[in-house]
């Protein structure tokens, strides 16, 4: 390599770094991770032991559904339900790649069936039905399977007369299922209507990130809406809004604090407090 090449390569790397979107790489197995917020070099093990929160600055890393369930439910109490429901490709959708292939890749990458895990479990002894979304599986997008499993979890709550907890992490609708994914918004929201009419407590926890069709349906319909610290939550994406209005957006736009300021959520919870907060809320709503 000539000196000229070396400079060229360095320049290209610098450009690439600048133009990349916020890199959120939570892949396990690395010994060291870098905090996206404070840039500290952290031992993977330390982060893990701290509920995937940066021990230096308190930044909350994204976590997948399995980790969430492990953190939130009493040990061994969570029982997955409806895991047999899997993705079809009703529209035989192909963009730059076939939807079928994308599903195969997502399954391999995440070792999950789909972008949500439904089931029943206990939180400090309280039995609840739950739907826990996973952003790693195709951006947590809501297609037929996600809509169905969320609805089934709510129907399970109705059947057992127990509270329902939804933990959201989603970029929005699954475009590859087009209108069928839009209808999942209606389906899940109608199921919330049933929970309301039965007088059952429905708590939603909005985690990083929650957007689009999930925000505009079951996520924001909780009797109590909790946003996890550092979550970004909104309807339209930042880029879409910037392109529409042609102005720069405030730095705290669509953060949990921003939503709190505008009265859209009941509270912000740190990951460490989440379990006890939910347990307290349930017991305060139980006769």
């Amino acid at each position, binding site marked *: 390599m000539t000196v000229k090449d070396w400079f060229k390569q360095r320049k290209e790397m610098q450009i690439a770094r600048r133009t990349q979107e916020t890199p959120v790489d939570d892949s396990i197995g690395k010994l060291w991770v870098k905090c996206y917020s404070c840039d500290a070099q952290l031992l993977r093990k330390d982060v893990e032991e701290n509920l995937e929160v940066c021990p230096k600055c308190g930044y909350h890393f994204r976590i997948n559904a399995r980790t969430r369930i492990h953190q939130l439910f009493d040990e061994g109490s969570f029982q997955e339900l409806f895991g047999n429901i899997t993705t079809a490709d009703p529209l035989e959708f192909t963009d730059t790649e076939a939807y079928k292939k994308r599903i195969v890749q997502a399954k391999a990458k995440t070792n999950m069936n789909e972008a949500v895990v439904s089931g029943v479990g206990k939180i400090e002894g309280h039995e609840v039905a739950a739907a826990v979304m996973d952003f790693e599986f195709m951006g947590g997008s809501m297609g037929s399977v996600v809509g169905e499993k969320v609805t089934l979890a709510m129907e399970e709550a109705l059947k057992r007369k127990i509270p329902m907890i939804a933990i959201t992490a989603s970029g929005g609708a699954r475009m590859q*299922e087009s209108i069928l994914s839009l209808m999942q*918004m209606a389906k899940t929201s109608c199921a919330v209507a049933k929970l309301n009419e039965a007088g059952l407590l429905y708590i939603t926890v909005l985690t990083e990130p929650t957007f689009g069709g999930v*925000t505009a349906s079951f996520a924001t319909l909780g009797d109590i809406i909790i946003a996890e610290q550092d979550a970004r939550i909104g*309807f339209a994406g930042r880029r879409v809004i910037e392109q529409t209005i042609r102005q720069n957006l405030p730095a705290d*736009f669509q953060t949990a604090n921003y939503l709190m300021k505008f009265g859209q959520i009941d509270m912000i919870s740190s990951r460490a407090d989440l379990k006890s907060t939910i347990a307290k809320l349930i017991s305060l709503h139980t006769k």
Partner: protein
Amino acid sequence: MAILEFEKPLYEIEEKIKELKKISESSGMDVSDQVELFEKQALEYKNELYSNLTPAQRLQIARHSERPTFLDYVKLMTTDFIELHGDREGTDDRAIIGGVAKMGDQNVMIIGTQKGKSTKENLIYNFGMPQPQGYRKALRLFYHANKFNMPIVTLIDTPGAYPGIKAEETAQGTAIAVNLREMAKLGVPIIAVITGEGCSGGALGLAVADKVLMLEHSYYTVISPEGCASILWRDASKAGVAAEALKITSEDLLGLEIIDGIVKEPLGGAHNDYEMIGKNLQEAILKSINELKGTAPDKLKEERYNKFRRMGVFCQ
């Protein structure tokens, strides 16, 4: 009338026929046989053209600048319309308009998204893109209709709920979500019609209905083909391909059992004959209302729930 790109050959034939007639008038030559032949050919061509439109071409008809708007339909289909303004919380969003009216002999609550036909009008109506306050106004009118046992008719023609700072600050997502949930609780018949663009949650926020109808050339989708193309193909010019892949036409959605019926449009689209589309749509809406009118509120709700409960395709 604005001519769409793919309509140009047809327009040229029609111009030639006009020219021929003019020549024959001025010269006294009898060319009626030729004119008749040309007119027959033009009609054949027209029929063929409009029955073989691609989704991208139909998209252009759905977005035609002279397509009837909500207020046109109100004028065409109802009498005694009285607009009910405002969300009672500080705003009267103009992108969603609603009020009470008589359709045939039937009192109805009619609500819809309003687009403009000129830039000036579009600035007033925000291009048919509602703010959260528009959805909240609609919700207030839903409750009103429920209280006075009035069927609800919603007409939808929107490129989507408005993506803006104020909209996010005042909870666009929540406003739509609440409508979806509350529409499930109403005990009166709800008829929703996609009259032009039915884009995403912004359309669905008025469409959790017992009967969902579409005008022949309207489209209904989770995301605009342009938006989909720029995200999945990373190329907005692939909108035509995305329009195919997304299955957005009225026939596609009837096939997928998402909608309950298609209302036929005049040849070439609704803008060619306001009277006719008004009559066709009114007939379809009144037919749906009559089918549902006798149903007990609880049964109505249950059937509405089951209708949306069934939607979705997966393996088990």
